[in-house]
Each structure stands twice: as C-alpha cells, then as structure tokens.
C-alpha cells in the first residue's frame, strides 16, 4: 500500500513508539503508575508527563501553558466552549471540529470568506462585539497557509480572543504568533492517537468541560497517560529538530508529483501552502472509479472526517468551485515517511487511470 493521506493521520514515528514502550510495561517495572499519585512510582510518571509537556511546549510560542487533551477536537471544544465568549467568528474553511462547535455556541456566528486561492482575507470585516475569532494555520483539505498573525493582531485590537487550529501546521511550520489559544494533535505529527493539546496564553481564562480529579490545573480532568504524553513529546521534539529536513523532502515530492500529473489543476494557492498537501482536480474525473481502480493507493477525496459522508467539501465550495469541480478533486498528502519511489509510482498510475476514464 502506498499511503498518501498524511492529513488524515500520520504513521507513528519509531522514536515516538520507542518512548512509549517503557510506559506500557507490566508490573515488573514502574512504568505504569498514575501520574497523579503522590507515591514514588506516581512521581516518576508525573516527571515523564512534565518532560513531555516541555517538549510539546517547544513547538508553541513562549508565554503560555500546554494543557494535554485527548486530541485536537477536545482541545478546540475546550477553547471555544470554555472561553465563554458569545459572539464568534470563523473562516469558511475551518475543520468541522471548529465550525460545528462555533455554530453550536453561536448559531449566528460570522463566517469570514476565502478567496479563490483558499486564503482568508486578513482585512475582512470583523463583527462588532466579537468575542473569539478562530482561523486555522494550515487548511486540512487544501494545505493553504492562512494569514493568522495578522488576524490575531486584529482580533487582539478588537478585544477578541484568537484561536488557531494548528493541527496541520504544528511541527511543520513555526507556531502562529499572537494567538491566545492553539490546538494541536499528536497523530498529525507522527505521534500517537488519543492525545493532543491546547496551548493557552498566560492570563487567558477558560472554564473546563470535563470536570473531575482536577488534573491539568483543573482545566481538563482525567488520568493522563504517561505513554501517550511521552510519545507526543518525542514526536514534537523530532518534528522540531527535523523541520527543515522534512520540508525539503516534502518539497521534492511535491515537485515530482506535479510534474507527473500534467492534466490536473491545483486547488488553492501554490505559494501560501504546506506542500505536503496536493489537492488537485481534473474535469470530469470520477473519483469513486479512480479510488476503486487504485485500491492499493491510499488517498482522499476530501477531509477524512467528512469524506465518508458523500457531501461536497465545504472548503472546495468556499474557494468557488462548483459541486462538479469539487467532486472531481483528489487530495494527495505527503509526509516524512513517504518515499520518492512511492510518489512516482502513485502519480504515474493516477495519471494513467485518469487518462483511461
């Protein structure tokens, strides 16, 4: 199988897996205690959690704290609902985890449009009395990099909080500056599933959604997993260390893939983009047929979360594509572990299968 769906999830880095193993050990070790227990094994587990927290924090701006959650969806829910803000605004191309939560909290929320390139207008009008603005760093469907620094500045000037869903950008790009709240997910940066984090700028007050034992400064109750934290921490550390190397590798894959797919048109900006995301369309292409012709190539027809639904992508619609154009679009997602030979083989076969339709 050739895996070209690194926006949906990424494989676990061997280093992250290795870091988890001591915390998945049995009773003949001390790798299993509850990090909230005050006894010696508990303190060892707590120390592992704090080391991991520091590693994750290194991916994020200074001046805030990292709150571990079960993933980005929970982090985003905590940020949006926990902020207590009533008047909300989002970009039209946010992930469902943001869009649906914001619409739940403020059914009349303002939606900032995007242009044909898939970029939010940094100078778009913000509603009066705005409480929170949420714009993602890198779009999950088309990879476009949003002007979040400018939007954060404008949110700040209007007294609103700025929430950045950095799930697709964390560990790949520098952290968004100026945000008050940043959500990240481990399994999108070669860490384990089941853990993510919300970065909270110092001084930003949130109310918890999950109450209980009062872990994470009472912001998020529930026993923390030293294994998941350790895996996330090492994955974050690795991503930071390899950022330039990973980006260069991805750039090479992008160039090779584009050259092999001449009949396709790129969806979204080529320049303001994380190039691990190649979202392309070709007139008249039957995606279902393409996927069934190429069963051993894992690629996507939209975001994984929505792609089972059969609904046309709200992102592709927001950049002005017709339903027909949206339905003839595919997403190829490259990652650190994608090999050049795989990209060449996959794109050659995709081009041939498309030609044969």
């Amino acid at each position, binding site marked *: 199988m050739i895996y070209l769906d690194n926006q*949906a999830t990424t494989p676990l880095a061997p280093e992250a897996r290795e870091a988890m193993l001591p915390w998945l050990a049995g009773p003949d070790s001390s790798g299993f205690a509850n990090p909230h227990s005050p006894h010696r094994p508990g303190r060892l587990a707590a120390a592992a959690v704090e080391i991991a927290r520091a590693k994750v924090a290194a991916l994020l701006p200074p001046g805030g704290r990292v709150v571990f959650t079960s993933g980005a969806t929970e982090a985003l829910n905590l940020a949006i609902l926990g902020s207590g803000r009533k008047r909300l605004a989002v970009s039209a191309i946010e992930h469902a985890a943001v869009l649906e939560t914001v619409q739940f909290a403020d059914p009349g929320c303002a939606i900032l449009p995007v242009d044909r390139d898939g970029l939010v207008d940094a100078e778009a009008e913000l509603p009066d009395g705005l409480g929170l603005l949420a714009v993602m760093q890198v779009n999950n469907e088309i990879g476009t990099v949003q002007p979040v620094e400018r939007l954060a500045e404008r949110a700040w000037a209007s007294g609103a909080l700025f929430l950045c869903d950095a799930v697709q950008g964390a560990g790949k790009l520098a952290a968004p500056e100026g945000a008050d709240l940043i959500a990240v997910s481990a399994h999108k940066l070669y860490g384990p599933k089941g853990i993510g984090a919300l970065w909270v700028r110092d001084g930003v007050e949130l109310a918890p959604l999950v109450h209980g034992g009062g872990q994470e400064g009472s912001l998020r109750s529930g026993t923390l997993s030293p294994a998941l934290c350790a895996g996330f921490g090492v994955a974050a550390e690795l991503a930071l260390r390899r950022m330039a190397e990973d980006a260069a590798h991805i750039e090479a894959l992008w160039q090779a893939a584009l050259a092999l797919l001449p009949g396709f048109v790129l969806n979204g900006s080529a320049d303001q983009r994380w190039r691990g995301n190649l979202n392309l369309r070709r007139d008249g292409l039957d995606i279902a047929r393409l996927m069934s012709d190429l069963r051993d190539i894992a690629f996507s027809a939209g975001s994984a979360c929505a792609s089972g639904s059969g609904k046309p992508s709200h992102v592709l619609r927001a950049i002005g594509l017709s339903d027909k154009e949206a339905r003839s679009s595919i997403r190829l997602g490259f990652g650190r572990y994608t090999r050049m030979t795989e990209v060449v083989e996959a794109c050659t076969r995709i081009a041939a299968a498309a030609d044969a339709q």
Partner: protein
Amino acid sequence: MTRPSLYLDHAATTPLLPAAREAMLEGFAVWANPSSPHAAGRAARALLEEARARVKAALSWEGEVVFTSGASEALALAIGRCRLPLAAVSAVEHEAVLRHGGDAQQLAVDSCGLVAPEDCALAGLVAVQQANNETGVLQPLNAIATAVHEAGGLLLADCAQGVGKLALPEADLIALSAHKFGGPIGIGALLVRDWAMLHPTGGQERGYRGGTENLPGVLAMVAALEADRGWLDRAVVLRDRLDAGIVAAGGEVIAGETARVPSIGAYRMPGRSARAQLIAFDGQGIAVSAGSACSSGSLRTSHVLEAMGMDPKAAGEVIRVSIGRETDEAGIDRFLAAWGEMKARA
C-alpha cells in the same frame, strides 16, 4: 527506573496486561484514520467496529458503545448530553461526577456508605457509582435502577472501579476506564442503552463523540476486557487477610461489613494521619494512597468518609489499599507488618 517494591494502588491505575500491550503494539501498525474511505482506512474501521462488538460481548451489553478518552470524558458526555437533566448524584461519587453536580440533589449515604434506593425515585438523570473508589463499597444498583426507572428517570453508573471485575449493573448509561482493568490510560467508553437517551454532538462515533478514534487504545482495552478474571477469587482471600490483619493490629476497616469490590480496602490507623502514613510507606517502597489518586496530592478530608458520617479527624487517618492481579500473600503480609510497626509507634 527504580521499581516500587510493593504496589498496592491498583485502584489508581493497574499495570497494562501483556495481551493489552500486544494489542496496542499491533494497533500502532494499523495507523490509518478509521474515517478515511480508502482501503487502509476501511481496514482500520473494520477493526474498530469488530472491537466494539467484542466490548459488547465481553460485557454482555446489548446497547451502544461510544469510545472516549476515559471515564471522566464519558461521564461529562453522559451528563452534558443526556436528554434528561441531572436530577441527583450520590454524595460519594467520584469528583468526575460531583463536579458536574450543579443544582442537582445530593443523595445521602448511610454509615455503611450506601444510597437508599427509594431516594432515587426521580424523573431525571440519576448518577450513582457501582463501586466506590475509596472504600470499595458496592451500591445496590439494580434496586436503584428499578426505583429510577419507575419514576421515569435514567440511571448513570460510574463503573470505573467495577468493570472487568463485576457484572454490569442495570444502568442506562455506564462509564468505564480501561486503565483500571489492565488496559491503557487514555481510553474508555460510555455505554448507552439507547441512542435516544443522548443528544448528538456531531463527528465520529455515530455523531456522539468527535475526534479521530484511538484504535490502538481501543484494541488494547478490548484485550484487557477479555482477560481471565480468575485473580478476583484470590483478591477476595487477600482482602479478607488484609481486613483481619488490620483489625488484629488495632486498626479499623471502613465499611468492613458492607459488600465491597474485592480489590479495594480502606483502613484507619488511629492516632496517625494518612499523610504521615503515606510518607512512611512511600519511604519503604510501598505505594498506597489516601482516597483517589487525583485528589490525593491535596490530602483533603475525604468527602466519601465525611458523607458516611465519619469524624473528620478519624477520616484523616484512613488510607486506601488496592489489590491487583500480581498482588500475593507475601505482599499483603509485608504491608501488614509495616502497618503494624507504624501503628505500634503511633
């Protein structure tokens, strides 16, 4: 890492079972997103759904299963999304329920720690745990369920300490946590008798819980649920030995005459604070706790013992000892010897 020579804090968390560890490692290899429509995603989805069916089979549960990050999230989901408002919580619930209490009525317990079923005849959501995390006391949940149902209410049972050890109660919503029964930390579930009991939120898990599914965690949890439970017979004997030893050495067994989950015992050492006991035991490499792990850092007076009518000073002298699969007679005897010595010096 130094190994604790004696771990008797299995109610806080218990080691991952070898079968669960294997399943988790296998799960790491099936890393596609179960919501992706391609073959790799569908393979992950198939495993996830098979695991869901295995959870139902292992628990003899005919309702629905929503995978969550643990019991705290499952409880928050149940309380936040139930179609009925929270009407009452027992006074001895875990903080994960109590803190959601708001205006809900608190159900008093008697000196044995038991809720009266007739108090539970309420037309809203009633939350009563299966086994208490500090004392092990088992609530009469089937009688409580009858009272709740006759009044038109729904019963939410926090079964974090009971699942994997006891049969499920007759509850409508049940929260469980894998790391309490040999699965990994970071995964749990909410069992839902009928989808109509909850308002959906959108997202994964049939629209009841958003977020990419933690398939390795789910697979490991299922493996732990399916593990042999023979050790519980041994736990009964060990806890009896513990109870008898404490009494013989001049201590008090909390709720000793009440039906309790065999893995948990709470013991009072008159004249010595729980904090002093914990520090001394820790120094000897014995891991026990005062109350629950999450609140034990603070060493507040236990709300559970207070609800049972215990004098605050006496309650402050109680520690929890909890037994797991690898606990043996020698470990219990070592603990009792240390306890006895400490008591003699108290």
